[in-house]
């Protein structure tokens, strides 16, 4: 675990990513443009059949309003289906453990979580959900929620490409192509690969195995109502218990795992998520999972570049993402390597391994943590709660920046494009031109929409975390009161409002407060920006093209990329500095003060 080896692996990951992103991005642009690809001979007949069954006319171009309506209706139908499935779980098949239905706030939160591509989990998969729910409910949503995001960003790209027209494509076609040509084939390959590494894929009953060594533990005493009994001091009463055997949950894991990473969904089959050996068996599978998380968001920058007719435009955005990604990883890895004074005091050197899956070590865990929060994935191999304060600041900041460093599938790029529009606007003024991006003038409508896209999640985080802090039932959910507990709550709402879905852990999320307010945060954080993106796409498509000249600021060159990076960091810092000061920053200052 030497530094050169770490650097080699990290840059090896980025190298592999860049190598794959380019051809894959080109492939996606051909898919969305309806051009012929290597998969066409097999998949085009399926696609046509699908349209014929559903009555979709592929030449039917939609206005942005129709496109948005189709997207919302589609999501609504899937939301209701999933909600029904969660509430009716006992009567549905493939439930070998006989798991009961979910409480309605939890079902609501979970259904919202999966349609919004958040995959925030206020439950443990293995003890709450049946195989039917996992496969027909969640896995299907992992595909369609990701495809929805991809369709939206493609519509936005069309807005830039098209001139003086009112239409931005057909939602049903974009959705179908996303699933059929991109998500399904890749998931298939990835799932087979994961099985080869040891991920499981079955519908068996949970297995009970004897422990090689029996284990004694304190078990809380429960009263007749099933809630813990307390002594006079208010502490839970416990009794000694001995465990001789363990139950090992089974299930169709590999199929869900593949799309979980690829669609930046992040909802684990098991509570332990990608730290579970059945989900993520080997260091190689860990590497591949990270790659899968980053692949589509990174490749979409290439798709964007190709579709707008200038790959350099996509490369500039990719450069900004890469820079921030490397910087985030550097801070996190350095902070975890430096560990904490408390661990040093105990004589534990060699980095902070608390909360990390030892099979992957510091490096594998840290790479995963950065990748999962830079995108809107939210799968985890390490418990972010156990990171050092500055280390924990990194995933939190990555989420708070708006999930744009690669970002969610589709949502990452469209949020980044909104940032680019803000950056273009201010820099355009600074060089004395009414601003334009990709040949389209940036005017009042684009400003409104871009601001909604980049700020709405932050606004939701500020309001909901503020509410939580003065709600006694909400602060009671913290595992560690004080600055760390504040970070837990801030992280929870950041994760939900930005549709990430990872948890800082430590916070008991399955309460009415977090279920309901969280569901609202996820809905606003997903659909308000999505509608704004489509409205902007419609407006852009209607505009005429403005030719670049010497006086136009090139948006595919270093100065603009540099400026865009600064805008992203400043907007993030200005919005969240006070909250972060009361969370991770003061925790770090207190911790180093101990020294």
């Amino acid at each position, binding site marked *: 675990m030497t530094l050169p080896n770490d650097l080699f692996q990290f840059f090896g990951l980025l190298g592999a990513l860049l190598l794959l992103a380019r051809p894959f991005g080109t492939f996606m642009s051909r898919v969305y443009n309806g051009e012929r690809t290597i998969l066409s001979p097999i998949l085009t007949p399926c696609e046509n059949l699908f349209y014929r069954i559903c009555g979709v006319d592929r030449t039917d171009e939609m206005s942005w309003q129709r496109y948005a309506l189709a997207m919302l209706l589609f999501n609504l139908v899937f939301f209701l289906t999933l909600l029904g499935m969660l509430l009716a779980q006992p009567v549905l098949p493939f439930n070998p453990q006989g798991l009961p239905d979910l409480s309605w706030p939890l079902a609501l939160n979970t259904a919202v979580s999966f349609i919004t591509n958040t995959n925030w989990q206020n439950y443990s998969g293995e003890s709450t959900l049946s195989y039917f729910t996992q496969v027909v409910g969640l896995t299907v949503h992992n595909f369609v929620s990701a495809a929805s995001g991809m369709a939206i960003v493609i519509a936005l790209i069309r807005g830039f490409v098209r001139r003086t027209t009112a239409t931005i494509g057909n939602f049903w076609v974009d959705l179908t192509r996303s699933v059929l040509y991109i998500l399904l084939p890749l998931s298939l390959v990835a799932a087979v690969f994961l099985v080869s590494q040891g991920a499981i894929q079955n519908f068996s009953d949970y297995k009970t195995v004897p422990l090689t060594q029996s284990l004694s533990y304190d078990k809380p005493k429960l009263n007749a109502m099933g809630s813990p009994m307390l002594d006079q001091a208010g502490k839970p009463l416990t009794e000694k218990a001995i465990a001789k055997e363990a139950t090992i949950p089974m299930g169709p894991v590999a199929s869900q795992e593949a799309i979980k990473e690829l669609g930046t969904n992040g909802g684990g089959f098991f509570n332990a998520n990608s730290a579970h050996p059945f989900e993520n068996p080997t260091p190689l599978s860990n590497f591949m999972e990270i790659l899968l998380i980053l692949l589509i968001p990174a490749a979409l920058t290439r798709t964007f570049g190709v579709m707008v007719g200038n790959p350099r435009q996509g490369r500039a955005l990719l450069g900004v993402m890469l820079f921030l990604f490397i910087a985030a990883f550097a801070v996190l890895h350095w902070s975890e390597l430096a560990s904490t004074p408390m661990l040093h005091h105990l004589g534990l050197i060699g980095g902070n391994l608390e909360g990390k899956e030892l099979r992957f070590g510091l490096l594998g865990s840290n790479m995963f943590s950065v990748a999962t929060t830079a995108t809107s994935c939210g799968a985890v191999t390490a418990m972010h709660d156990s990171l050092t304060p500055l280390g924990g600041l990194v995933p939190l900041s990555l989420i708070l920046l708006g999930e744009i460093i690669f970002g969610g599938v589709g949502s990452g790029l469209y949020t980044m494009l909104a940032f680019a529009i803000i950056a273009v606007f201010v820099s355009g003024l600074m*060089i004395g031109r009414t601003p334009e991006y990709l040949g389209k003038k940036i005017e009042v409508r684009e400003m*409104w929409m871009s601001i909604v896209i980049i700020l709405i999640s932050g606004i939701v985080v500020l309001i909901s975390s503020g509410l939580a802090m003065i709600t006694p039932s909400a602060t009671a959910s913290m595992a560690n009161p004080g600055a760390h507990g504040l970070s837990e709550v801030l992280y929870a709402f950041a994760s939900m409002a930005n549709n990430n879905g990872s948890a800082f852990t430590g916070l008991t999320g399955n309460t009415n407060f977090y279920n309901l307010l969280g569901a609202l945060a996820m809905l606003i954080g997903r659909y308000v920006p999505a509608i704004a993106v489509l409205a902007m796409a419609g407006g852009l498509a209607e505009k005429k093209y403005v030719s670049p000249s010497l006086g136009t600021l090139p948006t595919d060159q270093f100065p603009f990329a540099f400026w865009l990076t600064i805008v992203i960091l400043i907007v993030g810092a200005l919005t969240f500095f006070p909250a972060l000061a009361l969370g991770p920053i*003061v925790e770090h200052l207190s911790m180093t003060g101990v020294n």
Partner: protein
Amino acid sequence: MSKHLSEQKSIFDAALLRAALVEAVKKLDPRSLWRNPVMLCIEIASCITVITFIMSLTGAGREPAWFTGQVSVWLWLTVLFATFAEALAEGRGKARAASLRKSRTDVVAKRLASADPGGTTTTVNASQLRKGEHILAETNEVIAGDGEIIHGAALVNESAVTGESAPVVRESGGDRSAVTGGTTVVSGSVVIRITADPGETFLDRMISLIEGAKRRKTPNEVALEVLLIALTLVFLLVCANIYPLSIYSVAATGLGHPVSLTVLVALFVCLAPTTIAALLPAIGIAGMDRLFQKNVIALSGRAIEAAGDVNILLLDKTGTITYGNREAVEFIPVGNHSEREMAEAALIASLADETPEGRSIVTLARQRFKLDQQVMPIDGEPVEFSAGTRLSGLNTAGKQYRKGAADSLVAFVHGLEGESIPSDLAQVVDRVARAGATPLVVCCGTEIFGVVNLKDIVKTGIQERFCQLRAMGIKTVMITGDNPLTAAAIAAEAQVDDFLAQATPEDKLRLIKESQEAGFMVAMTGDGTNDAPALAQADVAVAMNTGTQAAREAANIIDLDSNPTKLLDIVEVGKQILMTRGNLTTFSISNDIAKYFAIIPAALLSIYPQLGALNVMRLASPQSAILSAVIFNALVIPFLVPLALKGTKFRPMPAEKLLISNLMVYGVGGIIVPFVGIKAIDLVIGLFV
């Protein structure tokens, strides 16, 4: 321009400052401040601090009254500085509008029953005139309204509008028929058809434009305001978020107090983009005012901003790129004549020629060979230029001196049965024509002396201006009625990027439409009626004030001096307005970093003493830290007023370099300056506390 400078007041003239201060206080009225929502929020915040001040006076608050009182005073000053900047920007325009208004009052008109100048007239007040009516204007009368001369010619003093005291000729027909209400007929008598109803005349529009009464925010200004309002909203929420977070932190640590309302309000005001929001209206108003100082009237702020975006500039050759008239620059003898003989012949042939070209031949001949009076014939019979012969000259002492185009002159010589056409004539004529000049052949009887090289003189310094334009990314296209050969030569000399030769109005219109379809912004200057369609099509259309009514109506910018290179100034001001906005926005937002480092540790220190580590400026106490940030935030506005009113200096350079250079000054500078400023103010406060 110098004639206007004398009447121009400095922006910081004492009288203007006083008037602006009074106006600034009036503008604190929320009903007028609502046009600037960010500053309205600051005013509401200021009101809240007045309440917290009263509370701390009564001992209800935790903070000492000197602190809440000071915060309140400086917040009010922040708002006042903002309204003051706007009032100051409007001040100079208002003064000029007042003087214009004087020239409009109490004018009477002689209304004619018909367009017949001999018809009976009735005396009516100017305000009763309507579009389409006819009036008679005679010597020493003020023209009662905007209109077009349909009969006669007059010398008109337009100083009321243009500041130019030399009278100009206005006559019916042609491109100089428009007259403006408020101007005075110096001599002559004309019949005018009124073209604007009262209240809509040029003078009325000018007054309301200058006063800013009708000033509408430009789309770009609104878009920037959207950004500022959104940032303000976010900062409002940030401050609102700190309160519950601090309540929780107090409960969790058992230390300190939740952040007080005064501190939250102070933080909000410091974070909100007050600097740019305060100066935003002033930037636009001052930009238009700077154009007024250059005698350019923009009929909308939008046109000026569009001028900053222009990629293609269509310029009329005559009067813009070249001085209006061709000049003789060279005498080229042919056959066995000497240059001096040639010059003498040309001089005599041109003596009776009063055209500028003819006079320039006389001047050149005198300069080159000191040809004095002896050479001059005492008398002679002038031969006027006629369409039939296309020659002009002088018959004197039995000799026929003629000058004219080569083919006409050769025909004339052949007509006199002269045979001796010098063999090198054709070659010389061809050479001169190829260089873009006009060859004028001179003869005496059947004897051809040589060729006068009549050249279009490109204005001095015009190449540099085109170079500047090119550096800004603006392509210049010369429009001329000349043949392509001449046009190409002049285009090369003036260093324009392209030219349109033998241009008809349809050609101009087509060129503009094609450029616009290819995604370019087109600016054009014009004065004639035949320019009107092209002007109406162009994105930025500058009409000369001497131009026709049609041209002036089609344009969105009017140049009172009728100097076509003004477009360059307009482009510059347009860019300056945008750059000033962009730079101040960047500066304003960059400032927030230092303010965070001043206020956040101060506000939270009682809960978490560890946060003292963030007090990188080592400010003396929490209260002085917060106060220093508030004072800095207020004072930076008056400090930047001169920049807002004069505009960022514009240097033509490629976009990327310009961005980097402005980022260094206003971005990096915006980060550093408040650290220094806040620390300095803190030190000063330390002297008193």
